C-alpha cells in the first residue's frame, strides 16, 4: 500500500461524497474541501462544476457576492461545506464564539453565509480535521446555523455528512442525529466516543475507511495540488513536503 498523508485521506473521503453533484461550492478557508471538489470534478470528466471562493478561475459569478446566495436559494448549488468552532449532536454549528453571547470569549469571526446556506444546499458536508470534545459538544453556545428544522420550515438543504480526522458520519435529518459510517485507519470506536461530546448511532460492524489508492494519490499530488495552489499556496506547499 502506498503511504499517504492525513490530508490526502480526507480529500479522498470527501471527494467520494461529492460523486454525482452538478455544482459544488467551496467557502473561505477550506483547502481540503476545495481539493476534494477539484478531485471529484476531475473524476466526473468535466460534468461537475466547482466554485471556490477566493479563486478567480473558479468563480463564475459576475453580479457580486449576492449571486452565489441567490444560486443557492434557486437550487443551483448541490453541495457546500461548513466547519465550526463547535458542532453538536443535532448538527448545529457555532462560528461566533464561546460563552454567553454577545460577549463571547473567545469571539470568532462570525456566521458568514452558514445561517442561510445550511437550509438551502441539499448536501452540506461538515468538516473538522481535529476530532476533539472541545469541538464536538453536547450543545453549541451559539447557533450560527441550525442542523434541523420543524416540518413546516421550507428546507431543501441540510447536513448530509460529518468528516473528521478520525471518522466519517452520516446525519439522519428526520431523526436528528449522527451515525458512524467508517473509522479512519489507526482509530477505534471507543476512542472516538471518548472525544465526541454527543451520542451517535453505529452499525454492528464498523468499516475502516478505505485509504486513497495509487491513482487517487497521483491525481492529488499532480493536477489537484497544482490547481489548489492558486487560492491556497501555503496548503499546496504542505501537500508536497512529504
Amino acid at each position, binding site marked *: 500500500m502506498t503511504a499517504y498523508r492525513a490530508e490526502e485521506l480526507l480529500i479522498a473521503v470527501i471527494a467520494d461524497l461529492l460523486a454525482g453533484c452538478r455544482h459544488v461550492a467551496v467557502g473561505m478557508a477550506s483547502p481540503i474541501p476545495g481539493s476534494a471538489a477539484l478531485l471529484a470534478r476531475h473524476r466526473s470528466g468535466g460534468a461537475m462544476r466547482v466554485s471556490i471562493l477566493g479563486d478567480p478561475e473558479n468563480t463564475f459569478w459576475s453580479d457580486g457576492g449576492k449571486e452565489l446566495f441567490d444560486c443557492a*436559494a434557486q437550487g443551483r448549488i448541490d453541495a457546500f461545506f461548513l466547519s465550526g468552532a463547535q458542532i453538536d449532536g443535532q448538527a448545529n454549528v457555532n462560528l461566533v464564539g464561546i460563552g454567553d453571547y*454577545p460577549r463571547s470569549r473567545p469571539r470568532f469571526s*462570525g*456566521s*458568514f453565509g452558514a445561517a442561510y446556506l445550511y437550509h*438551502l444546499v441539499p448536501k452540506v458536508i461538515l468538516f473538522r480535521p481535529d476530532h476533539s470534545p472541545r469541538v464536538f459538544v453536547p450543545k453549541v453556545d451559539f*447557533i450560527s446555523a441550525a442542523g434541523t*428544522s420543524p416540518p413546516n*420550515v421550507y428546507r431543501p438543504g441540510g447536513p448530509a455528512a460529518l468528516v473528521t480526522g478520525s471518522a466519517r458520519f452520516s446525519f439522519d435529518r428526520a431523526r436528528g442525529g449522527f451515525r458512524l459510517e467508517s473509522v479512519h485507519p489507526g482509530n477505534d470506536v471507543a476512542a472516538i466516543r471518548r472525544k465526541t461530546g454527543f451520542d451517535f448511532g453505529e452499525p454492528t460492524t464498523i468499516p475502516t475507511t478505505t485509504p486513497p489508492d495509487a491513482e487517487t494519490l497521483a491525481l492529488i499530488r499532480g493536477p489537484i495540488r497544482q490547481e489548489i495552489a492558486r487560492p491556497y499556496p501555503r496548503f499546496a506547499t504542505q501537500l508536497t513536503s512529504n
Partner: protein
Amino acid sequence: MPRTELIDVENLANRIPDGALLALPADRNGVALAATRALIRRRAQGLRILTVPTSGMQSDLLIGAGCVAEVETSGVSLSEYGPAPRFGAAVSEGTIVIRDATCPAVHAGLQASEKGVPFLPLRGILGTDVLKFRPDWRVIDNPFEAGSDPIVLVAAVQPDIALFHVARADRHGNVFVGRERDLVTMAHASRRTLITAEQIVDVDLMHDPAYAAGTLSSFYVEAVAEAPRGAWPLGLHGCYAEDAEHLTRYASAAATPEGFRRYLDEFVFATRAAAQ
C-alpha cells in the same frame, strides 16, 4: 445631484462625520485603506460599521483605534492571516456593540434600501441565534401559501456613507467596478458615496458600452480622491497582490494592545506620505 468633486484623501476622510453608519466592502473587493488611515488620523469617533458582507484589516484597524461604536457583520477575520484580534477583543470586552448577520441578509438589507422598500424576504436563517438576536428582523407566514410557511424579513439598511476603493474613476466621477457588483449595491443603498481610486482617467467611462455596464454612475458619487496603492496592504484585483509580509506583521502586532498601538504609530500616524 451636484457634480462629483475631485478631492484629496484627507479631505475625503474629513467628510465622514463621527457616528456615521459606514458601509465597507469585503477584503478582496476594494477596501479604501489609505482613506481609513486618514480617518484614524482625524480621530473619528462612534462610527457604526456595516461590513458588506464581511471585513478584515480595515474593521480591525478602526476598532483598535477606538473609532467604532458598533459593527454589523457576517464575519470579521484576517482570513489566511488568522483572526481579527482587535475585533475579537472589543467584542469580548463589550467595548463595541455587535450585530451578527449572515452574508445574504446584509445584501438583502441593502437591496431593500436600493429598491426603497422596507424589507426583503429571505429563505433560511430560521432556528438560528443569529435571528434570535436580531429584533429588527421579523418572521411572517408566507402570505402566498395556504399552509404554514415561515419566512424571514430583513429590514432595509440605508448606510450614511459607502466608502470603497477602485482601480479607475474618470474625472466626471464615474467609477469602474467591473465584476465587483456589491460595490454598486452599496452605493445605490447609501445616502452618500465616497470613493478612492488608483487613477483618475481622462475619458468618460459611460461613453464606452464595454465599460458602462461595469461602471457606477457619478450620479451616486459625491467625491473621488486619487489614492495610488490605496488598498495597500490589501490587494486590488488586476492592479496588485496583497502584501503578505505586511499582513503577517499586522496580525502579530495587533495581537496585543501595545503592539497595535506601535503599529498605528508607525504606519498610520507617523508616515502619512508612506501610508498613501
